[in-house]
């Protein structure tokens, strides 16, 4: 881990950030303020965990990055390019670079595992080809290999609803792997899983981060998992970033204060 952090810092000096949020504010239609003037830089290859109380705005933050939510003010740059202004084809191409893992997996339950994983390649094809299911053999093989790397190869032709929760999440990870993105957003990827499976899923994320050098941003509720896997911690409360620091520099007291309503502002 230390070796990697070292690399990351090297990078961050040399390159532009992978994700940059500039004065981002998000107000929901009903008036709820989801995000308040967020400024954040995330570099290539980082493994970031976002922590915060329920309703703090973690999901909102994550979903703003790939524009599943439109923000109200500010700008978000992916690899230097504004996703806020992107449209149509262009937006889709930018999203292709960003994989997402959901708490509830979001697999198509009645489709096969393979088809679910192949969905990760959708943005690489013209629409008509995907409509008639004309994926190349190469991509099918790629999907299969992704399944192998999360140890789900033998379920390739099973229907997604035949899998347990942990297995479904691993299929979702294989989908991201097939998408081959540069960034992975994970919104409470372990919330509905038992401790053992949670661990496995986090290991898979670590694998993506270390082996393929993908940037990972994960919302986590579990402090144990956060501590074990994250390199950098971002604390969110009421739509604002109240803490941002390296994991090894973050004492337990910070977590306590974030979760108990304190300010958590030791650094910043």
């Amino acid at each position: 881990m230390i070796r990697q952090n070292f690399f990351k810092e090297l990078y961050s000096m040399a390159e532009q950030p992978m994700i940059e949020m500039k004065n981002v504010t998000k107000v929901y239609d009903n008036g709820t303020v989801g995000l308040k003037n967020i400024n954040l830089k995330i570099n290539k290859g980082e493994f970031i965990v976002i922590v915060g109380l329920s309703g703090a705005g973690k999901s909102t933050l994550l979903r703003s990055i790939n524009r599943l939510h439109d923000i109200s003010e500010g700008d978000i740059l992916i690899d230097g390019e504004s996703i806020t202004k992107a449209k149509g084809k262009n937006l889709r191409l930018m999203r292709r670079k960003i994989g997402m893992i959901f708490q509830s997996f979001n697999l198509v339950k009645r489709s096969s595992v393979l088809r679910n994983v192949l969905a990760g390649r959708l943005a690489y094809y013209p629409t008509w080809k995907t409509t008639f299911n004309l994926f190349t053999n190469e991509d099918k093989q790629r999907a299969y290999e992704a399944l192998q790397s999360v140890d789900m190869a033998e379920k390739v032709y099973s229907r997604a609803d035949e899998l347990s929760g942990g297995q479904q999440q691993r299929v979702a990870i294989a989908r991201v792997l097939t998408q081959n993105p540069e960034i992975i957003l994970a919104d409470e990827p372990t919330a509905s899983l038992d401790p053992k499976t949670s661990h496995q899923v986090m290991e898979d994320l670590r694998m993506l981060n270390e082996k393929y050098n993908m940037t990972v941003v994960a919302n986590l509720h579990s402090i144990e998992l956060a501590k074990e896997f994250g390199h950098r911690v971002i604390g969110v409360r009421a739509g604002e970033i109240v803490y941002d620091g390296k994991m090894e520099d973050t004492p337990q007291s910070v977590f306590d204060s974030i979760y108990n309503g304190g300010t958590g502002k030791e650094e910043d």
Partner: protein
Amino acid sequence: MLKLPKKKFKMWNWVWVILMILGLVLSVQNTGTSLPEFFANFDQFGEIFVQMAQPDWSYAGTAIPYLVETIKMAIISTVIGSALAFIYSLLIARNIVHNKVITGVLRFIMNIIRTIPDLLLGSIFVAIVGIGPVAGILALTVFTFGVVVKLFYEAIETIDPGPSEAIKAVGGNGMNNIMFAVMPQIMPYFVSYALYAFEINVRASTVLGYIGAGGIGLQLKNTLDMFSYNQTGMIILVIFLVVLVIDFISTKAREALMR
């Protein structure tokens, strides 16, 4: 121990009860319905039924070709009607098309189409394309469309939005969303509603015959006009059998798809 407190007065419950009773009284009055009269004349009610209960088996030979025509008409119109309804329902589902103006206008049109009684549809098409099964098919197609489009779009609106989000997140477009996230989720409903429409169509053809739109309905009217109730009984029997078969198929299909 405390005494049981009095129940709180719930106004809405009473409002509903009063409204229902009011509606009942009004409609009984307006129509002049009297159940005692019905029971007093129950033997008359049964008379035709008794005659129909002795179906004229020899008439089956005449009835079946018309029934076959009815089934053909129902198949074609179910296929076309549900295909149209499927496309249309995608356009009016608010979780697929987010433009409220488009969905609003299209829904209004849908509601008008749904409103038109099948009989009127039949008559209009008979006036346009002439007597015969084609008018029936057109009428049933529009009718099917009206019946299933609402069921379809309601089914689409209740699907799990998660997979759609996932498709969006990998960079898929609207069509990708429909093919990969929406279709697999609604397929079973689609099939079961279409079969439901098919059954309705077979039955609706008994009415369409009255206006000359082909199928078994014309025969039904004929037997009634000749007071040959044993033949009417035969027709009802074959319709019943067909509906039973459709029921069976649709149960099986649903089981197969929901597996």
